[in-house]
């Protein structure tokens, strides 16, 4: 129970942080006006809009005020699907590469981990441009478009942005996991299991994975933050009409705060669920996670 409480207080802190920063951004909308009164006004305005969402208005192209809810949810769910899918896929890919590396002999193991650490340090823009270019090149050569490279307001693209977004975090997860697994592999119970005749993949899935899962989970915060920060770029480069496009086109402080808080809500719910599940099932308290 206590862990749910920590996740909740953490969420509260994050909400306060987002409100304060959005109010600060509000000082920069009409030129730079660093005034305390404006800041306080912004904070109050944001809080009012959060309690009464009908105050969330944007200025349309013809200078009429619209409520954001005409199309906000389309943008929101599109981004959320991409974000959560990328999170899941990066964890799955990360675990899979770890598993494969464990099975390899030691020499190949070193080679693979070196290649991955090189790939991880490449800037994400490089990876995006290579992926986009190869899809286009294949299209030029054969005339079949494997996946749509960019979306439009009518046609949403899913596969390519999710895959490219998941790629670098999966390398990060791999690096963390490999470190944890190597630590775990030195422990005496592994030796016992080996001497009893279990093979490597058996030990990995029934013992090691279970023991490293809490640590992997507690490292996943940095991955969530990384994904969030990259989402802004991905929405631009893949022409995704997602929540960050929405924010950059209508940068009103209350819209920014509302959109980001709504975006974090499911993430925190997910974390609260997993934390309680973990606590109940096998492990002792794993502490503050997100």
């Amino acid at each position: 129970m206590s862990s749910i409480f920590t996740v909740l207080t953490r969420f509260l802190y994050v909400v306060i942080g987002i409100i304060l920063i959005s109010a600060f951004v509000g000082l920069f909308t009409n030129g730079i006006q660093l005034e305390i009164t404006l800041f306080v006004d912004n904070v109050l305005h944001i809080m009012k809009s959060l309690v009464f969402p009908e105050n969330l208005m944007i200025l349309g192209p013809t200078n009429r005020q619209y409520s954001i809810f005409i199309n906000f949810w389309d943008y929101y769910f599109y981004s959320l699907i991409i974000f959560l899918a990328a999170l899941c896929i990066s964890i799955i890919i990360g675990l899979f590469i770890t598993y494969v590396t464990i099975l390899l002999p030691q020499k190949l193991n070193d080679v693979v981990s070196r290649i991955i650490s090189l790939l991880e340090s490449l800037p994400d823009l490089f990876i995006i441009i290579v992926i986009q270019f190869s899809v286009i090149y294949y299209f030029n050569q054969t005339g079949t478009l494997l996946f749509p490279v960019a979306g439009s307001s009518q046609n949403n693209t899913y596969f390519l942005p999710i895959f490219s977004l998941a790629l670098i975090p999966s390398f990060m997860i791999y690096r963390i996991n490999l470190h944890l697994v190597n630590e775990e592999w030195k422990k005496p119970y592994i030796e016992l299991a080996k001497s009893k005749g279990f093979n490597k993949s058996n030990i990995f899935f029934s013992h090691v994975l279970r023991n490293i899962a809490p640590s992997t989970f507690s490292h996943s915060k940095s991955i969530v933050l990384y994904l969030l920060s990259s989402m802004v770029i991905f929405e631009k480069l893949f022409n995704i009409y997602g929540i960050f496009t929405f924010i950059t086109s209508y940068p009103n402080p209350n819209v920014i705060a509302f959109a980001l808080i709504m975006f974090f809500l499911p993430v925190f719910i997910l974390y609260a669920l997993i934390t309680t599940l973990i606590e109940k099932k096998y492990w002792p308290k794993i502490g503050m996670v997100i």
Partner: protein
Amino acid sequence: MYIVKRLFINKLFLTGFVIISTMFLVSILYFLIFNDRIPTTPLLFDSSGKPLPAPYSLKIFPPFGTDNFGRDLFIVMIVGAKYTIAAGLIITFLRVFPSIWIGLFIHFFLQKIERPLKSIADALNYFPITLLAFLLLNVILVQEVMIYNIDGVLVNGPEPLPYWNRVVLFLVVLALLFIPTNSILISNEVKAIYNNEFIESSRTLGASNWRIVTKHIKPFLVPQLAIIFLRDFIQTLILMSHIAVLGLFIGGFTRKDDLFGQPDKLSNSNEWSGLLGMWWDFLWTSYPWIAFIPIIFLSILILSAKGMMEGLTNVLTAVDRLREPTEKRIETGFIKSDNPFQRVKLY
């Protein structure tokens, strides 16, 4: 000094260092000798007198060809190198240097409110940093007066700031965004060093805070700071390229006519991340290599910095291992336990 000597024997560190400093020095030399003059080719015609389309390929103008203004891209890259590296270094310095003092201040004078401070700094991290940088800089770096239509009346947007103010504000804003996180990080480092026994004995003997910082904390903190500096340098370059994709970069742009008289944007500083943002669209044209050039250069820069960081980490761990007493080193192979029948912990 010993660490520095070992660093330059380390292959990874040396390669990274040589690549970065060569790029920087070549660019500076080009500025000193040719004053950043970029050779431009006029419109070319084929044998029958038909004009050839403007971005000329790498076969006609090795090694990288030209852009739609006829500028030699290799020289453009050389000119941009110094601005990229210098901007990265300045931002990183502005991020790390104030954070050292703030971190020390937090550790020595604000110990009581350290926990809430950390929670706040942590909560601030959840605002995507690229988005925040974009929202702030979007107003600061405005170049042309926008005209809005409010209630049927045309209203001018904010006036653009003078050129150098924009450059300075760009550097300062990108640095400020990371100061809270960095200060907390450094205060944690200081705390870890502070828990050592020798600090306690020094304190018992009556040493002042200043003496402890300069005599006992500094030798341990400086190597950590070097790692933080390199890590932040990489992060800064990545952040700069991200906001360049969103259309904001150092120096801004001027509108100019290209070889066919079509108006197009031209980067003022030719800084790599800005070029990356401006040239991304070439990927969809029949000259995709133009989009690749700045990204490849930037990746080389980032990988070299990463190599320096890895080399530094390796050297530091090696030095640390030398510092440990010999008995401890021999013992590590065994399971240490006081009780021979102790249960093996599974987690």
